[in-house]
């Protein structure tokens, strides 16, 4: 729930000029979980150039480690034979990759234009407040750019499952369900059995 306009972690720390830059790690020296290694290797084989596999690889490593930690980057670098710095440049660029340990799950609340005109800001603030009140841990709660579900505005994506339309009144239940690892707002997720927007005719 930090302000995304702040600078990245460690930007104001002095650079150690004595230290050699991290090189491509020796695969023999880095222990990588077998499943992670297998998924990165499989991803590399899908592309003519192994570098194309870097986003799927980082996403897989993030699933294992919860964020793109230095250790996660070292493991990906060892399997892909690239430098950790290269991976770091990507992890800090893409919104879904976390460069801080803010939570291994996520709740993205859309606050872009189409949701904005339907009071998404209030919904986001209610959810963020609930997350603080209920001391929700290991979940990244943040406002997000348009998630491509403006028909169900205001909406949120809970680990990829789209729920909506939301109101401030849903915040308590949404956060409680995430906390207790229950299905969030059953029947109101896109793709749920019989999901209908409130104004669509019942099938």
């Amino acid at each position, binding site marked *: 729930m930090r302000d995304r306009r702040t600078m990245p972690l460690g930007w104001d720390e002095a650079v150690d000029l004595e230290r050699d830059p991290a090189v491509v790690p020796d695969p023999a020296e880095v222990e990588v979980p077998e499943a992670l290694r297998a998924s990165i290797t499989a991803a590399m084989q899908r592309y003519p150039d192994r570098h194309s596999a870097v986003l799927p690889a980082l996403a897989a490593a993030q699933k294992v480690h919860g964020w793109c930690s230095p250790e996660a980057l070292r493991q990906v670098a060892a399997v892909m034979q690239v430098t950790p710095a290269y991976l770091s440049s990507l992890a800090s660029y893409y919104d879904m990759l976390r460069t801080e340990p803010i939570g291994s799950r996520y709740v993205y609340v859309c606050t872009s234009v189409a949701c904005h005109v339907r009071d998404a800001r209030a919904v986001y603030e209610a959810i963020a407040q609930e997350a603080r009140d209920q001391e929700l841990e290991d979940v990244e709660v943040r406002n997000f750019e348009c998630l491509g579900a403006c*028909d169900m505005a205001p909406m949120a994506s809970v680990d990829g499952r789209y729920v909506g339309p939301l109101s401030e009144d849903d915040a308590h239940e949404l956060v409680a369900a995430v906390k207790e690892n229950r299905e969030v707002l059953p029947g109101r997720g896109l793709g749920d059995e019989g999901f209908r927007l409130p104004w669509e005719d019942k099938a």
Partner: protein
Amino acid sequence: MTGQLKKLTANYDEPDLHRMEVYERLGGYGSARKAALDMTQEEVLDQLEASGLRGRGGAGFSMGKKASFIPEGTMEKYLCCNADESEPGAFKDRVLMQRNPHQLIEGCIIGAIAAQATRAFIFIRGEYETQAKMLDAAVTEAYEKGYLGSGIFGSQTDLELVVHRGQGAYICGEESALLDALEGKRGNPRLKPPFPANQGLYQGPTLINNVETLCNTPAIIEHGPEWFAAMGVDKSTGTKMVSVSGNVQRAGNFEVELGIPVREIIYGLAGGPPEGRDLKCFFPGGSSAPVLTKEHLDLPFTYEAMAEAGSMLGTASMIVVDDSQPIVPLALNLAGFYRHESCGKCVPCREGTNWTVHMLERIDQGDATPMDLEIMAEVQTNIIGNCLCVLGDSMAMPIGSMIKHFRGEFEQHIEAARAARDREHIRAFSAGELAAAGEAGPA
């Protein structure tokens, strides 16, 4: 011309349409088979060009013409399907992929044949987890059937298709940034030329098309280009998915014939603004399109008419704004989005989006003067056309249009916020709060 015309979405009520057996039962993959076995590459290309199908991703460029730019030669060629739908207001590709993933795969096969590509990628935004999984499952089915892989449909043509997931960056919807992201780089737009048709993915000739564009191709091959060109008007042929959102009673996707009046879409299909509210303005083609107002409601919804009115059809994502919405917070939200998504490569965009947000914040907080509107409008004109891609323009155009259409409201907001701030200063000063904090009184 009223109501919906369901061609692309004709079978959407069919249960389990996302499964191969259902899609095939309804005639699916017939066009791809025909294109692979019975037609030459030139014939496929000619049909696409003759249909007048224009890119549905925003730019509206002729799909067949774009494919014809791919040079001859034995080098490896690529097809990229742009499924990075991130434009605020757009959600048509999500539905197309989720309801009917095989239609897109069939479209990719046809597109690949037209471009002589042997490798195809669907670049889908990372947030679309469900849709990516459905596409993956559909691609696996297509491989099992031999519709993808080596010798598709028993022909001499090979085609590998990979669903590639992005990780959250609006700019990756820009075609050259998409290629960089697919190559494993930060998604920064490239200097053009060379255009992707000559030097795209891995430096090879690359055809890039939007999901909806490719989804249209099977029907064109099946029914012929004349059938497609008979729908719509003039150079805006065919049907179009329109996503309507914002302050309307029935938000959703509607497939309409191009040329339908805008009023029919907003009021007829989407039910218009909520009870007791009136239309203030609308974005006809996603948040990057300059806003239009009530006077434009009777225009036909075509690429040409929207451009003539000073806006664009873009992705045909209509965001409707009613009269309960103040314009300044809306502009601030919009500018904030583009500031966040600017990749930072070009100075006018990186600085322009940032300063526009700062100036709008000043307006909102009562620190601005009416002169700031001139400066802000000037910042917008200095962004347009001065960057590698159109992300900066995508903020500058709608913000510029808001200043143009709602200057009075901006000025009122400036004065009201200034007065409120002054009142607050006086109150705080009288209460002794400012003196305690060591601050000066109202300026």
